[in-house]
């Protein structure tokens, strides 16, 4: 089909032709077209179906407020549901499908709902589908869910990338119509840092859609000249295709730039869209206004649209929506549509003007005091029925009807901080109210200044105010001259006629009847109205419908519109793609990776890695022939306990604590005492939260008179540091203590096992005999003939063990050196699994026990909390509830039958006890297989566990249906006397 409705003029490149398809059918259009304007040019009015009744629909608008013409744009992984055809920029090869219909747009089975509409009135579903109870999930809801939704998502990963960025400016101007451009010119010329953002792909706003002139040139040309000048100013940033979607605190706005949506696919490396966080000192809302329709019976047919949109399609896109056009208006602005279209040679059959009296348009059939009461044409408008001033009705054949009920300022952004809009009787519309975002003000139509002249004036004067507030001197330039037509409107919200349905919210199918029903059932608060009828909850968020709904409710309750209220607009101004908000944080880039010093070596060895927070740690190192992870882990454990094992423990937090009060400081943050620790020694420390619960643990070494090195768990490294800074700055501000993290500065390896010393003697340059470097020794040393290092004699495994640290850049070399030196001892390198096995064999607590809910007493470490000094958490750790004699205690668990597996998370039950909460004895916190015990072993928190050692109980896991008889034992499974680590 050729572009039968294409007429002269418009801002499209007729020299270029673009091919596209809609529902598989091929059409042509031109650069500058939207999908909607191109389809209309091709005589296609039917573009969608409504949500509830599946009514046939065409575009109601020519902008982002569109409720009807929603399509699935593109296909495959790039399929984009609910895309508004009215803003989708045409590109060659564009593919679009209609949505929410079956089998086809013209013939939609679901339109049966339209026939049944009587039964589907507002809120009907709250009153039925209740019997029988089970039927909701089984029968009713599945049917409802099958009908739910509009477009469909692809189930494939979005192949496009998204960027984010930050902009800083003195002045953000939202909207590049006459007021926005004038404000930008004023502020830009004065040298202020300006960001001018507009959602359209052409600057100028309504100037592109109107025939108004500015300084004796067309509005569109004036806009082009203004943009040309602005683009020469380095302090002005022009952002086309950029929608400011949200206003946040302290001058921060979010904006979406559609970088590549006008292309078939983004250019290589380029994002599809960019999310900008704009940090502004001031902002001007110059977002214009949105026209609203008048509700009348069957006012939703394809071909019926807003008068200003009908005009826009003709003036901007050179499209006449129909061959015979009519207009229905309650204000002067609507009449422009008739004048403009007739000037373009379109057959204007009638102007139905609801206002009585007044002048008549020359050369046009102008029916004063008349109203459109009904329309015909199932898939597209064929005729309208008009009630004339004299009461007679007349049917007029027409294929396009422009409706104007007046204009609503686009105040959305100004109400994002929940300020209530202010009603202005003279324009019968809301304007931005008090208490909006600080330093945001509205100008032009967005503030109710509807004429071009008023827009230019308010844009300039507001910019001047802001410049003086910024202390920037500006020279006032003369205002270009422009039309200044007064607003003449006589409110008409809906045509009171007949029993039929008159649509208010076209997408959600909310009609005047529904509002009346809500009123009848006492859902009269505006919030109740919205929630009960779903008015304004569609993808357009009520841009064209909220005010009409309010007005109808106001009339029913006899209250004024402001008394009836308004629903608060919430961000975003227009819907935003999830990908844009996520930016680059997806897939493997969701969070950064942290690599350990031995990572490269471990990768070469084919290690299996595990995510520990952001770290990747070696979980185990399989050797040739090992087919199950248990084989590797058992080997690592046995080899370590038999001879020696090496483990990368760099991920543990390390904090350098220095200062003359460092010891006193540690006494405050640890429950046990550190000021008495000898230089060259380290000690296990227990850190509590102020509420007496265990926060973290680790060893802290005294490296010098006023120098300590604290280690934290991997998980708590950051929160412990924050806590230390709080204690240092807020609780004891005069203590002489300095902190710095050294976690990443040192590559630290644990060398554990009977031969640990023998191995390290080949590396460390000093005497590390038991005498020279006893258990819990610590100090600076050197390795490999002079490289500075730190050595600690601490053991998590219960073996004779050291931790050796060198500057991280040497970490890779050191592990290779350790492995090499360890060959004669059959040394192994072990991962976190083996670490876990050995710590559980020794009954050491770790993450699963340090769960933020457990006390030192629970862990069997109660004696470590010194009552002699005031430390964080000590006072509240003495509360009765934390000291119950029958409270949880850490115990060891063995299966009575060695072959029976245990599960962490199983609960303790007495033998024979019923599986009910009253009998719940606690749970298994951590479980491993111990090659030494020859069975699974576990740690657990058991009520009064210290009194139950030796007792037989059950470990029950209902989730995998296991019920194992167990023996409660001491958590110290292996070498309880700790002889090995002192060896």
């Amino acid at each position, binding site marked *: 089909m050729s572009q039968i409705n294409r007429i002269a003029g418009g801002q499209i490149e007729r020299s270029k032709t673009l091919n596209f398809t809609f529902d598989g059918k091929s059409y042509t259009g031109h650069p500058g077209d939207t999908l909607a304007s191109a389809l209309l040019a091709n005589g296609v009015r039917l573009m969608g179906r409504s949500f509830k009744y599946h009514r046939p629909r065409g575009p109601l608008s020519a902008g982002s407020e569109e409720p009807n013409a929603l399509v699935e744009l593109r296909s495959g992984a790039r399929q984009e549901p609910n895309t508004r055809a009215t803003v989708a920029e045409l590109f060659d090869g564009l593919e679009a499908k209609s949505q929410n219909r079956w089998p086809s747009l013209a013939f939609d089975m679901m339109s049966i709902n339209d026939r049944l509409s009587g039964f589907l009135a507002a809120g009907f579903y709250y009153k039925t589908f209740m019997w029988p109870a089970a039927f909701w999930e089984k029968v009713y809801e599945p049917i409802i869910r099958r009908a739910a939704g509009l477009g469909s998502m692809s189930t494939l990963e979005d192949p496009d990338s998204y960027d984010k960025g930050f902009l800083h400016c003195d002045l953000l101007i939202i909207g590049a119509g006459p007021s926005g451009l004038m404000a930008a010119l004023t502020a830009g010329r004065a040298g202020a840092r300006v960001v001018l953002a507009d959602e359209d792909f052409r600057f100028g706003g309504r100037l592109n859609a109107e025939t108004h002139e500015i300084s004796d040139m067309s509005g569109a040309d004036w806009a082009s000249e203004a943009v040309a000048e602005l683009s020469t100013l380095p302090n002005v940033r022009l952002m086309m295709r950029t929608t400011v979607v949200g206003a946040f605190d302290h001058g921060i706005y979010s904006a979406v730039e559609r970088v590549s949506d006008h292309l078939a696919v983004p250019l290589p490396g380029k994002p599809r869209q960019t999310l900008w966080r704009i940090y502004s000192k001031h902002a001007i809302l110059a977002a214009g206004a949105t026209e609203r329709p008048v509700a009348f019976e069957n006012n939703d047919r394809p071909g019926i649209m807003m008068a200003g949109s009908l005009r826009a399609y003709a003036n901007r896109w050179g499209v006449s929506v129909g061959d015979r056009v009519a207009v229905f208006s309650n204000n002067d602005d609507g009449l422009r549509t008739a004048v403009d279209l007739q000037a373009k040679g379109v057959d204007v059959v009638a102007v139905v003007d609801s206002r009585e009296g007044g002048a008549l348009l020359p050369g046009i059939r102008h029916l004063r005091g008349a109203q459109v009461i009904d329309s015909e044409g199932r898939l597209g408008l064929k005729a309208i029925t008009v009630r004339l001033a004299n009461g007679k009705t007349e049917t007029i054949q027409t294929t396009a009807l422009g409706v104007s009920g007046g204009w609503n300022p686009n105040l959305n952004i100004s109400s994002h901080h929940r300020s209530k809009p202010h009603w202005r009787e003279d324009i019968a519309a809301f304007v931005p109210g008090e208490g909006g975002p600080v330093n945001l003000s509205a100008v032009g139509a967005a503030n109710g200044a509807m004429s071009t002249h008023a827009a230019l004036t308010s844009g300039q004067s507001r910019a001047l105010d802001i410049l003086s507030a910024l202390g920037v001197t500006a020279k006032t330039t003369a205002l270009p001259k422009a039309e200044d037509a007064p607003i003449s409107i006589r409110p008409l919200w809906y045509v009171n006629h007949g029993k039929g349905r008159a649509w208010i919210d076209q997408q959600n199918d909310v009609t005047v009847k529904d509002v009346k029903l809500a009123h009848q059932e006492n859902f009269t608060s505006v919030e109740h109205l919205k929630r009960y009828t779903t008015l304004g909850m569609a993808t357009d968020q009520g841009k064209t419908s909220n005010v009409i709904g309010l007005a109808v409710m106001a009339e029913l309750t006899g209250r004024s519109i402001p008394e009836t209220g308004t629903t608060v607009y919430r961000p975003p101004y227009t819907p935003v793609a*999830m990908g844009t908000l996520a930016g680059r944080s997806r897939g493997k880039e969701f969070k950064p990776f942290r690599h350990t010093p031995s990572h490269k070596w471990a990768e070469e060895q084919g290690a299996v890695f595990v995510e520990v927070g952001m770290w990747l740690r070696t979980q185990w190192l399989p050797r040739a022939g090992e087919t199950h992870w248990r084989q590797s882990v058992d080997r690592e454990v046995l080899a370590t306990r038999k001879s020696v094992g090496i483990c990368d423990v760099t991920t543990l937090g390390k904090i350098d604590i220095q200062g003359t009060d460092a010891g006193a400081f540690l006494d405050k943050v640890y429950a046990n005492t550190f000021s008495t620790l000898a230089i060259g020694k380290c000690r296990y420390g227990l850190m509590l939260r102020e509420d007496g619960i265990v926060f973290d643990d680790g060893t802290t070494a005294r490296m010098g008179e006023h120098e300590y090195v604290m280690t934290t768990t991997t998980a708590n490294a950051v929160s412990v540091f924050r806590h230390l800074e709080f204690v240092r700055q807020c609780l004891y501000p005069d203590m002489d203590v300095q902190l710095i993290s050294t976690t990443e500065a040192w590559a630290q390896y644990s060398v554990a096992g009977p031969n640990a010393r023998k191995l390290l003697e080949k590396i460390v340059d000093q005497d590390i005999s038991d005498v020279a470097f006893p258990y819990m020794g610590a100090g600076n040393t050197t390795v490999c003939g002079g490289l500075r290092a730190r050595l600690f004699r601490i053991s998590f495994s219960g073996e004779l063990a050291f931790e050796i640290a060198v500057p991280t850049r040497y970490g890779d070399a050191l592990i290779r050196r350790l492995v090499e030196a360890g060959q004669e001892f059959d040394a192994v390198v072990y991962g976190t699994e083996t670490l876990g096995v050995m710590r559980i064999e020794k009954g050491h607590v770790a993450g699963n026990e340090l769960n933020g809910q457990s006390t030192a007493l629970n862990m069997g470490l109660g004696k470590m909390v010194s009552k002699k000094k005031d430390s964080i958490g000590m006072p509240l750790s003495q509360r009765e509830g934390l000291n119950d004699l029958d409270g949880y205690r850490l115990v060891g668990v063995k299966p009575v039958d060695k072959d029976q597996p245990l599960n962490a998370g199983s609960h303790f039950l007495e033998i024979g006890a019923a599986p009910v909460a009253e009998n719940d004895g606690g749970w298994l916190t951590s479980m491993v297989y111990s090659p030494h015990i020859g069975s699974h072993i576990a740690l657990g928190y058991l009520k009064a566990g210290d009194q139950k050692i030796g007792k037989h109980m059950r470990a029950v896991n209902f989730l995998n249906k296991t019920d194992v008889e167990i023996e409660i034992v001491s958590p110290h499974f292996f070498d309880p006397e700790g002889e090995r680590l002192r060896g």
Partner: protein
Amino acid sequence: MRYSGFRVIAEALSGHKGWKPVWRDPVPQAEYDYIIVGGGGHGLATAYYLAKEFGQARIAVLEKGYLGGGNVGRNTTIIRSNYLLDGNEPFYEFSLKLWEGLEQDFNYNAMVSQRGIMNLIHTDAQRDAFTRRGNGMILHGADAELLTRDQVKAMYPFLNFDNARFPIKGALTQKRGGTVRHDAVAWGYARGADTRGVDLIQNCEVTGFKIENGKVFGVETTRGYIRAKKVGVAVAGSSSKVMAHAGLRLPIESHVLQAFVSEGLKPLINGVMTFGAGHFYVSQSDKGGLVFGGDIDGYNSYAQRGNLPVIEDVAEGGMALMPMIGRARLLRTWGGIMDMSMDGSPIIDKTHIDGLYFNGGWCYGGFKATPASGWCFAHLLAKDEPHKTATAYRFDRFLKGRMIDEKGMGATPNLH
């Protein structure tokens, strides 16, 4: 009037002339036996059960705005009883059981939909913790199942299984969990209470309490002084403000929680899903909108609106879990005021003032609690002793060291 399918058909055929107001708009009386402050979900449920289950009369609910305008009017509609601790689980399981019979009970279709809730597992430690939790749930009579990675993949093949930073290793699921049409809950309770004679008084803000020698005698309101034998406050979000009129300081901070809904989409996500490696949870409504959320903003606020970082954080979690939602669009964000308590668990208790009772501290878990909260608060008001499932929700648990800290975050409300 009784609602039913037949009624809907009959009304349709007679032009819907017969539908009556869902509630009256009564003028406040001079005195009531019970005044419930707060016409949100919990307040309305309390009044409903006081009248229906505990045979009490002369009850008023005072609401400063419109009925159901509390957090029942803005939440992510999830119901579940998958709690860890003994202090919580019996209460939430009681609540879930009440949800299961609610619509027949108050003859209003709140679309209680048990399509299941799933907490994804990404680490072995998480599996251990969820195993402990699931077993605890079962011991308390709730349902719980542990799913393998493959079972999750069979249900939601489009999740990120191949390229994830934190791979999915399984899930803890509760099949009886699901969602409810939140506004309908408020309206159903309101209608049920109204038909039982409860006065629901909108646009009536409580501005003070009349308290003499340790006893409450009534409330000052924007519509005048009203006498009452017992006053129950259920105004989560504004608890500190209202209780300050009675001179109480609470173990509560008010924080903003944002929630999000997408444009309507053909259903893909049947149940409720929570991402264990990021701050994101999601379900899909019967209208097709993805309803999702994440963390609270983290600072005290009564502004009922949040800021951009949390919106981005939530979207990042969503994309990490479901890489196919990149082109689905966020339609609307909103913020509600959360009563964040010091251990993340609620309070349903008497105050030290005779006749003044308090219900609050629901953090962002209040919606699922609505039926049990109403029932237990009504029980406390009528019998002056806590309901057996709510015995742990006492003010003095902090002094006694009997916190109910599900997350183990301590006295840091913005981390619960």
